[in-house]
C-alpha cells in the first residue's frame, strides 16, 4: 500500500534529511513519531508528492507520485490519499458539503453531492452539510475534515498532528474515528505526531530521530 525506500530530502538551505525505510499494508495503521524538526511534516509532503525527494522513492498503491508531474500527479494525489491536517482546516468560504465536493472535484472525479452527503451521514454530521466551518464545534470540524479525506475512498489516509491542542477525551475520539474509517475503507493510516498519547495507541511506530540543520 505504502512503501518508502531510501528516501531523503535536501532542504533549499542545503541541509539533508534521511528517512527510515518502511511499508504499510492495506488496512494497517502506523505512527510517524519524533520531536519537532525531525521531518514529520516533510515526510508527509514527500509522500503526498508536494516535495521532490533527493534520493529514494515513495510508492502509494503501487504508483510513484514523483513520476507523475503536473496536473495528472495532482489529481492522482487527490485519488490516492486523504489528508487530515492539524486543526482540520476546512475551506472557510465553502459549506461543509461543498468542502467534501471540492475533494471529489480536485481528485478529477465528477462532483457528486449525494455521495458527499452520504459520507457526512456515515460520520453522523448529515445535518451540518450546509453550515459554514466557522459555525462548527471542534468535534464537528474533525468529522467534516475526515469526511473530506475519505470521500474519494483513498487507499491511504494521512493525518498531521490530529490531536495537538486536544484534551484526552477529544484526542481519543479523533483517533478512534480515524482508525474506524480507515478500517471501513481498508485504507492504510499514517499519523504524524509528537503526541505520546497517540504513540501509546498504535502498535507500529516509525521513529524519526535525526534532526536536519536548517530544517523547519
Amino acid at each position: 500500500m505504502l512503501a518508502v525506500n531510501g528516501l531523503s530530502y535536501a532542504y533549499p538551505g542545503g541541509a539533508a534529511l534521511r528517512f527510515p525505510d518502511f511499508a504499510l499494508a492495506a488496512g494497517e495503521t502506523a505512527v510517524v513519531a519524533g520531536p519537532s524538526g525531525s521531518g514529520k511534516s516533510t515526510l508527509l509532503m514527500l509522500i503526498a508528492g508536494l516535495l521532490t525527494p533527493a534520493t529514494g522513492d515513495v510508492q502509494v498503491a503501487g504508483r510513484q507520485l514523483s513520476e507523475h508531474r503536473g496536473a495528472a500527479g495532482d489529481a492522482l494525489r487527490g485519488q490516492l490519499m486523504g489528508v487530515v491536517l492539524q486543526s482540520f482546516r476546512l475551506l472557510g468560504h465553502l459549506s461543509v458539503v461543498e468542502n467534501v465536493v471540492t475533494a471529489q472535484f480536485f481528485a478529477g472525479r465528477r462532483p457528486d453531492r449525494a455521495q458527499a452527503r452520504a459520507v457526512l451521514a456515515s460520520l453522523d454530521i448529515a445535518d451540518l452539510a450546509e453550515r459554514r466551518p466557522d459555525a462548527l464545534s471542534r468535534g464537528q470540524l474533525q468529522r467534516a475534515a475526515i469526511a473530506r479525506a475519505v470521500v474519494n475512498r483513498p487507499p491511504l489516509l494521512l493525518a498531521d498532528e490530529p490531536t495537538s491542542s486536544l484534551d484526552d477525551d477529544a484526542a481519543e475520539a479523533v483517533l478512534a474515528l480515524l482508525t474506524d474509517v480507515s478500517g471501513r475503507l481498508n485504507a492504510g493510516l499514517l499519523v504524524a505526531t509528537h503526541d505520546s498519547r497517540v504513540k501509546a495507541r498504535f502498535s507500529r511506530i516509525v521513529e524519526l530521530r535525526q534532526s536536519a540543520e536548517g530544517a523547519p
Partner: protein
Amino acid sequence: MTLLSLALAGLRDNRLSHLLSVLMLGIGLGTVTLLLLFSGTLADRLGRDARDIDLVVGAKGSPLQLVLSTVFQADIPTGNIPLAEAEALAANRQVRLAVQLALGDAVGAFRIVGTSPAYLTLYDAHLADGRLWQKPMEAVLGASAAARLRLKPGDSFVGAHGLQGEGHLHADHPYVVTGILAESGTVLDRLVLTAVDSVWEVHEHHHHHDADHDDDDDGDGDGDAERAGREVTAVLIQYASPVAAISLPRHINLETPMQAASPGFEIARIYSLVGVGLDAFRALAASLILTSGLSVFVALYERLRARRYDLAVMRLLGASRRQLLVTILLEGVLLAGAGAAFGLLLGHAGVLALHHLLPAGHAFAVVSSAWRVEEWLVPALAAAVGLVASIIPALAAYRCDVSAALAGAEV
C-alpha cells in the same frame, strides 16, 4: 462544482471589499460609457446635420454662430439678410441648391423654421403622416416636436416670439398642422417647418401692428415693392461643382454684405473647443479606472495572503497549480465583468437622467441613450483591468509553496 463556482464562492467570502471594487470600476467605466455615448452621438449628429450642406450664407458675425444657429439650430442667428441677396445666390451658376431659412419664432422649445421643401431633401426626410405645407400658416412637424407638443395633422397651434418660445404669443396667427415627418435622426426631428411666407406674415403683422397697416392675409399676393424689404435668416447652399468651394465663399465675403461659413470647417472648430472638455473627461475616466484596477488588485492580493493556507489545502486535495491560477484570474474577470455591467447601466442611466434634466429642445438633449457599437470598449477595458489586476495574485497562487504555506500557518 467548477472553478467558476469556486471563484464565485471566493468573491462572496469578502463581499464588502469586492463590492467597493465593483463600484469604483463601475463609476470609471460609467464615465467612459457616458463619454462614448456623448461624443458618438455628437459626432453622428454634427456629421448628419451638416452632411449635405457645403456652405451657409447669413448676416455678418461669428461664422461659428452662423453655422450653429442655422445648421444645428442651437444658437441665436447672427441677423438677417435681404431676400434679394438670397435670391441672387440661388441664381448663381456655382450653386446647385439654395435653401432659405427664416427663423424668429418657436412653439414650446421647438423652432419654427420658414423654408422650402428643398430643406427636407437635404436630409432625405419623409412624411410619416399628412402632407407638406402648401400655403402660408400651414406647418409640418418633426417627429420629436410632434411627440412632445402632442400635435397631429388638423391641429392648430400658435407660435411665440423668440427662439425658445419665451416671447409673446402670436395668438392671432395660428398655424395648422398638415403633416408629421418620420424620425430622421437629424435636426429636422426638433423643428416645425413652414413656408417662409408664414414667418413674414406673422412678423409683418407683428411689426406693423400699431401702424395703420392693412392686414394682408394672402402671402402670395405680395407685390415687388413689398418683397423688397423682406429678409431671410440664412441660405444653405450645395455647390454645383467643387470649384465653387474656392471662389464662392470669397465672392460672398468680399463683395456682399453677407458672410459665408463652411459647416465642415466650423465642426472642426467645435471639436477643438469641446475636445478640451472631452480630454478632461477622458483623463478623469482613466484615473478612476486605474484606481479601481488597483483596488481590485489590492483586494485579491490581500485575500491571497489570508488564503495561502486554503490554497495549500486545495493543492493537497488534488488541485493543480493551473487550477489555482485560473480560479484567481476568474475572480478578477468576474469582478471586472460586474464592474462593466454596472458601468454600462450607469452611463445609459446618466444619459436618461440628462434627458429629464434638460429642456426638450436643448442641443445636448439629442444625446441618445441607444446602444452604440463603440461600447464594446467598456467590457474590453474591464476585462483588461480584471486580468492585469489579478495576474500577480494568480501567479502567486500558481507558485504557492504548499509545504511552506502549511508549515507557516501551523505556528
